[in-house]
């Protein structure tokens, strides 16, 4: 089983080069979105998603923080292999982009080693991640979609009325077995990670720890939440130029990127709170919501949370469908979990005992979400035409193909097409 991993690299942009870098990234990003990529990720057969995002610096409050460039990719296999792939496949793009950052090797000094070393030094830890379609390689995802298309084509071309579901399924299996291109489907899919025992362990831990959690929430309620100052901005008060810049990249392919930069509320208590909630979120994403429906939201391909050393929080995600739909799911389905993380950030709508209210102040929350939204200059998806439900459904089709099924089960299986 190849694991999916997330690589996040953070590099400081040279002072004065911010605008140049932004223009360069925008140009690359636009070409990727329009299907004429100037950075050829498609040659790297391990990258599912990748993005470059300029993380604005901080000037007004606290210690000055320089503007940085974040790279975040979701890939098969270990980070070292991912770096090696990037350095060997798109060195030109790396040079062009990172020479505008501090510390990149000088022109005469650029080798695979020096480039790799530059990136490796700047890897940062992800505090929580979620992957909508875990345990599958890019290759498997692509193959399984080809299989689904082939099966559907077969069904379009061959009348199935009058036959039993078992018969139709057998026909389909025979067809797959006879097609050389689908040879790979004869082998059963790689096993998925077993995680139930971890959930049991967590359950036991919860049995012992819940009084502490309650105490923690009471302290939070009495000592912190009541003095929170929400942003209380309405959607109509948002900077229209920012929204335009964000919308420019949305709804072009079946996935859209979302990047947010938030300021954590002051103090250790809030920091520990968010770290705890992120740990839980990470655990739940990996061990409980394994079929692409984190908190019952079926549209999220991927997300990562990164707490920055200066006390800010980065959120990267890509989702299927529209931003409005995505936010609507947050509000209608995942308010509880989202409040747990987001309410530790400045300006968030008021919460009650960490998990309640907050997001449910719908329009204020949406405006806040846009307010903290930063443009994703470059976004790449290896499968722009598939959403999480499609990919998981494809896997079920593929897994079911080899199994012997009853008539009922066969009907269920055929419904997936």
């Amino acid at each position, binding site marked *: 089983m190849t694991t999916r991993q997330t690589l996040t690299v953070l590099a400081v942009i040279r002072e004065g080069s911010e605008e140049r870098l932004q223009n360069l990234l925008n140009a690359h990003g636009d070409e990727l979105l329009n299907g004429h990529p100037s950075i050829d990720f498609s040659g790297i057969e391990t990258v599912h998603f990748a993005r470059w995002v300029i993380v604005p610096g901080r000037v007004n409050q606290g210690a000055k923080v320089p503007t940085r460039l974040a790279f975040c990719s979701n890939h098969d296999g270990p980070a070292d292999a991912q770096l090696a792939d990037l350095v060997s496949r798109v060195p030109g793009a790396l040079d062009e982009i990172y020479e505008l950052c501090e510390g990149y090797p000088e022109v005469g000094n650029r080798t695979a080693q020096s480039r790799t070393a530059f990136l490796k030094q700047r890897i940062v830890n992800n505090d929580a991640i979620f992957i909508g379609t875990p345990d599958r390689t890019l290759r498997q995802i692509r193959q399984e979609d080809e299989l689904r298309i082939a099966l559907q084509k077969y069904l*379009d071309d061959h009348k199935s*009325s009058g036959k039993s579901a078992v018969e139709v399924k057998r026909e389909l299996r025979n067809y797959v077995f006879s097609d050389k291109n689908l040879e790979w489907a004869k082998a059963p899919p790689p096993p998925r990670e077993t995680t139930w025992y971890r959930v049991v362990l967590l359950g036991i831990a919860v049995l012992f720890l819940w009084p502490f959690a309650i105490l923690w929430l009471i302290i939070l309620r009495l000592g912190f939440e009541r003095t929170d100052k929400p942003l209380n901005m309405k959607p109509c008060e948002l900077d229209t130029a920012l929204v335009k810049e964000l919308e*420019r990249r949305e*709804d072009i392919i079946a996935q859209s990127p979302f990047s947010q930069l938030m300021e954590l509320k002051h103090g250790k208590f809030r920091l520990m709170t968010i770290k705890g909630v992120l740990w839980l979120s990470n655990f739940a994403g990996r061990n409980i919501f394994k079929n692409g429906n984190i908190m*019952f939201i079926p549209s999220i391909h991927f997300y990562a949370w990164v707490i920055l050393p200066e006390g800010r929080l980065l959120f990267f995600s890509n989702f299927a469908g*529209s931003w409005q739909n995505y936010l609507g799911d947050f509000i209608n389905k995942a308010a509880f979990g989202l409040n747990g993380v987001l309410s530790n950030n400045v300006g968030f709508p008021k919460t009650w005992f960490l998990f309640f209210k907050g997001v449910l102040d*719908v329009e204020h929350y949406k405006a806040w979400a846009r307010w903290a939204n930063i443009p994703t200059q470059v976004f790449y998806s290896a499968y722009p035409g598939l959403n999480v*439900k499609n990919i998981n459904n494809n896997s079920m089709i593929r897994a079911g193909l080899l199994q012997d099924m009853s008539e009922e089960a066969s009907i269920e299986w*055929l419904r997936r097409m």
Partner: protein
Amino acid sequence: MATLEIADIQGIILRGYGRLPEARFTLLRIVDSARAKEWLRAVATRVAFGIHQEGNPLCNIAFTFEGLRALGIKEKNLATFSPEFREGMVTPHRQRVLGDFDKSDPVNWKWGGPKNDALHILLALYAGDKAELEAVYAEHKKLMQGVRVIDNLDSITLAGRKEHFGFRDGIAQPFMEGDPENIGDAGCLAAGEFILGYANQYGLHPDSPEIRDQQGELNALTEVPAGRDFGRNGSYLVFRQLTQDVKGFWEFLASVTTKSDGSSDPAAAVLLASKMVGRWPSGAPLVKFPDADPGGLSDDDDFGYRDTDSTGKSCPFGSHVRRTNPRDSLLDSSAKQSLKLASHRRVIRRGRVFGEPLVPSMDPIQMMNANPAVNEMGLNFLCFNANIVNQFEFVQHNWANEPKFERLYDDPDPLIGVNSICPAGVQQNFTIQDSPANRRITNLKRFVEVRGGAYFFMPGARALHYLSTLQENPMVESVPDARSGGFLSTYDEIAKGGLAPADAAKAQYQLLAKWLTEKPGQLFGELRENRPVLVPPAGPVIVTRFRDVIEAMDLFDVYTVKPAEDAVGVVGGGSKFLLGMDDTAQRERDQAILRLAVKRTDGDWIRTIVAAEAKAIVDQAAGSLDLVKDYTSTVPLRLAALYFGVPGPDLETMRGWLRAMFHAVFRNPTHDPQVNQNGAAQAATYRSYVSGLVAAAHAEEAKGSSLPDSVLNRLVKMQHAEGASFNDEEITFNLSSLLMGMIDTTNAAVNSAVNLLLDQPDHLQGAGAAAREGKDELLLRYILETLRFGPPVPLVARVSATDHWIGKSNGHATLVPAGKLVYLALASAMMDPLEVENPMEFRLDRPDYQYLHLGWGMHRCFGKYIAQTLMTEMVKALLLTKNLRRAPGAAGHPSLAGPFLASFTVEYDS
């Protein structure tokens, strides 16, 4: 749960007026805001509210964002409307959201699109029959003033309340809590989903537009923390005119349901169409009648999908009604949660059919065999919701257009979600859940196209009355009203009136001159739309469109600067100046020499001088400053002294000299001999003063002392250097002319910019922030954009050297005969919607080239960058004060003395 204030809610939001089968949607444009408000007062008494459901006919009214702006709602208040309403239905992102491409692309729309007339008001009339409709329309037509009819969209009701494909429509309407007619009805939705001022399904009040910047008679509106609630009892209205290709629809269905022997199977075609709709032609839901249409007519709305059809076998997941109102069916949710999710996305539909049906019987089988349609037919889709993004757009985007709705892969809504051109590799299918395996209809076609559309706001009674009490908005007043029917009708009447040609020409010229001085904005707007190049028999040609103005300026050999040459000649003492020289060898030489003395690299030096001088005056004035007398020409004169090296004997004398020359050259269209004489006399004195300075410089040189750096001294020094240089006389002349062109233009520009900004608190604040943060570029944008609404140089004059067809590549061609005086209306060009996107909008992201304040092409202002620095720094010094405001009374507004500003006093806290 609050009871609805139905007396304040327009009737059509609450009821569909089903008993009134005829309707007319009249689209209007405001051409005279003041008169339009008078009209509104009269209309308001005829508008139907929730309490008037009985009478016939009925009338309702709604406004677009541009309409509210044209009525004079201030920008700060306009900014409280929802973003999607402000932006309108046509933006690049919204085009993707709504799927308006190809034939449905807004550029191809009949109304509401970027190429169509600006749309301000929707007047909806409903009547019992055609005659009654015509009568009520005639009555309204007589009332109308200050508005012009853009289009009338007539609507009818088809037998069985069907839409054109043959299906009963308008069935599942939401009921509202608090509506006296629905009391006790279970399954009602919170009124705030549809009407502003009430709680919605989340228990929150939807965002409502507010009057935060006081204007109009506020008493009628409810108080809210930030001001007054304008939105209460109003609703956002979505209007899309959809055409339906009925014949094509049924032919397609017949073609994909032919039997294996090739014969047609009409029953299968109707079944498939019903699967796509989710209801039978009768309206009966498939989920209850999976096999056959029970016939008759059905309004059955009492069903769900979860218990009876969880697999989609009766009513496919991809069908129109199951996806636009999924009820309890949404996967990944419980039935209860699904109902809750769906309840946030409902709209109240008030659509009406238009066009005669393909067959009167509305029988699908007859439609398959009918002759092709002779008329256009379709649906005027109207719906109400409290939040367009969350409701209408959400449903259209995420449920109808989304091919991956639920667990589908490539299945858009077969009725309203299919694209007519589909990118390679993308499929558009309809999946019919079936056993043992699903069936798919592949390669769907699009049979519904968008012909027009807009977002409106339908105000409550009190808000409607409030609108008619607004004062005119100064920023909007200067914006031309197109086709007001004012100028051209009278102008053309004169020609037909039987006067002798010479007399007619004279009368026309007088009319033109009157409009040019009194209502230039209105005149330009009307001309731009109807006669972009006006060629009167006598008097100047007027060019009003952006592209034509540019064309004329680019063709400097055809459109010569003879007027300026003549004018400069009046005061010129026999020489020629850049401004008045066509493309000649002398012009090239003079310009080259001047560029060596007036360098772009002097920018920082100039900025330092101007900033310091401006600050000194503002500081010294201590809180009250007459801009005209002590600032806006004083600062440029200080630049003349410190940078150009021409201080003048004293400020007042310099000012007087330059003013007299400027008056004769640029502000004397009637060639008043007295003005010319005075100009020439003052110019002579001024030149002799400058030539004295040149002589003094030579004397200094002779003494061997080095000359301090200034433009004048550079020109003197160049005489000893290699290459071309001016002789003393030329130095004198060119410097005189250059300064004449600098002082009173920047003077007018800065006063105009400050005057306009003071009326726009938001922009004043934005410009102030730019000033404080040292964002000079941004501040300049504020100034240039502000000046678009009150340009200091509204037109420039040229003379045609040869006959020329102007505008050939711009969609028209007009002959400008040789020897004509031609006015290029810069003010008009910068308001031309064909070039300048939404010209009435104040925007900071417009491309540079669209600002013509400093000219274009060869004759662009020689000192463009100096002028920009002067404007920026002078405005900046004022913005850096605290609480900049007008002086009380008349002093706080610009006053004129002849063609020049006399005074304009501002105050600030020092």
